[in-house]
Structures are given as C-alpha cells and as structure tokens.
C-alpha cells in the first residue's frame, strides 16, 4: 500500500505575530505621546526607563513588521531583531507587574510572558532557517 502524501498547509503570514507587533508599536507610541503608562511600570521604574520601554515597543513593532513583509534573509534578520527588542520590553513589563501586584498579576503577566516566549521561539526558528539556508 502506497504511503499517503503529506500535505502541509501553512499560511504565508502569521496573524498573531503581526497583530501583536502592530499593537505593541501603537501602544508604545501612545505612551510616548502622553498616554498614561501602566501603573506597575510607572511604580517600579524611573521615568527615563519607562520612556525607553515605550520606545522599545515602538521599535520592536515597526522593525518587526517591516521584517515580516521584507522578502529574503534581510527581512528575517530584521524580524528577529524586532522580536528580540520586543521581548526585552515585555520582560520589563511582566517583571514590573509581578513585582507590584504579585499573584494578582498572574494572568496579565502570564499573557505577556507567553508573548515573550513566542517571540523567542520565533527568533530561534528564524535562526535555524537561516543556518539551514546557508548550509545548502
């Protein structure tokens, strides 16, 4: 009996990644332009660090989205860079939420940490793809 062919169905773009990157960029920009930042962040970090955190969200979102739409190796490296910067900002927020609100921040911090882990996971994927591509 002949083996059935394996059909792999995969979308070209990942909607979760792109929407989260866009949301990060928009929320970071709104914090930079005067919107009130999260209370946990404001309580646990000095003002300039909060500004850096918001700027990190903007840079991660914009560069990550550009990388997602840029074809080729350069786009993938840009995407990985955006995701790493975003991971840094997300780690700062999750830590601030847990340190200020403790267990009460379990769910929001958990969501943020899952977002962070997904970023790192995607970075590892990109790294492997690039390495495999260079080895061919």
């Amino acid at each position: 009996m002949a083996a059935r062919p394996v059909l792999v169905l995969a979308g070209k773009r990942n909607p979760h990644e792109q929407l989260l990157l866009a949301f990060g960029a928009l929320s970071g920009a709104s914090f930079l332009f005067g919107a009130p930042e999260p209370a946990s962040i404001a309580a646990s970090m000095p003002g300039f660090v909060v500004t850096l955190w918001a700027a990190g969200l903007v840079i991660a979102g914009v560069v990550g989205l550009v990388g997602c739409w840029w074809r080729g190796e350069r786009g993938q490296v840009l995407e990985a860079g955006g995701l790493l910067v975003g991971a840094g900002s997300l780690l700062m927020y999750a830590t601030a939420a847990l340190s200020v609100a403790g267990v009460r921040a379990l769910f929001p911090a958990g969501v943020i940490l899952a977002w962070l882990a997904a970023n790192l996971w995607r970075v590892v994927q990109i790294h492997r793809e690039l390495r495999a591509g260079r080895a061919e």
Partner: protein
Amino acid sequence: MNWLTVVASVLAALLTGAGGAAMVNALARRTVTKVEAVNRLNESTLEWAEQLKADAAGARVEAAEARREAAEARREATDARREMRAIKLEAEELAAFMGQMVRWVQSPDMSMERLRVLVSQAGPLNGLARKMEG
C-alpha cells in the same frame, strides 16, 4: 528595586541589545556580490557552467565559419551565373553567325571566292575563340 527587577532589567537589556545588533546586522548586510555567488556555487555547477561557456564559444566559432562559407557559396554562385550569361551570349552569337553562313551559301549570286572573303571578314565570331586569341 528588588532583585527580580534588577535581573529582569539586565535580561531585558541583553535582549534589547541582541535585537538591536540583529537590526544593525540586517541593515548593514550588503547584497551578495558576484564573487560571493561564484564561491557559493558547488564544483559540479561550476564545471557545468565552464562546459556551457566552452560550448557557446565553439558554437559561435562554428556559426562564424558557416557564415563565411555561405558568403563564399554566394560569391561562387554569382560567378557561375556570370559565366552562364557569357556562354549563352556566345552561343547566340554563334547561332546568328551560322544562320548568316546558311543565308550566304543559299544566296543565288554567291561564289566560293566571295564566300571565303565574307567568312574571313566576319572573323572568328565565337566568343571562346576570341577569348583564346586574347
């Protein structure tokens, strides 16, 4: 700041630094140059490319030779046509002379002496004979 915040900040700084480095690397990355592309080709592909190049050069030489031969053939055909025209003209001249000879012979007032004179005056009308004389 408690120890968790400090550790998280350091980790966040590391992640951000790595991300920034990746961005700079991506933006500073130059496109693959021709030399690098050649280096990336494996040996068999290079051999194939060299063979293809040699074949193309051979084909160009053969095409030039074929063009030269065709030009030579055209020139020879032109010469042959010219010679055919000359031969045809000579045959027509000869036929006309023979017709004239017949008319002279059949003329009622023609004598042998006069015919000899006429033929000698007409000269060698055959073009080939003229060429040989020339």
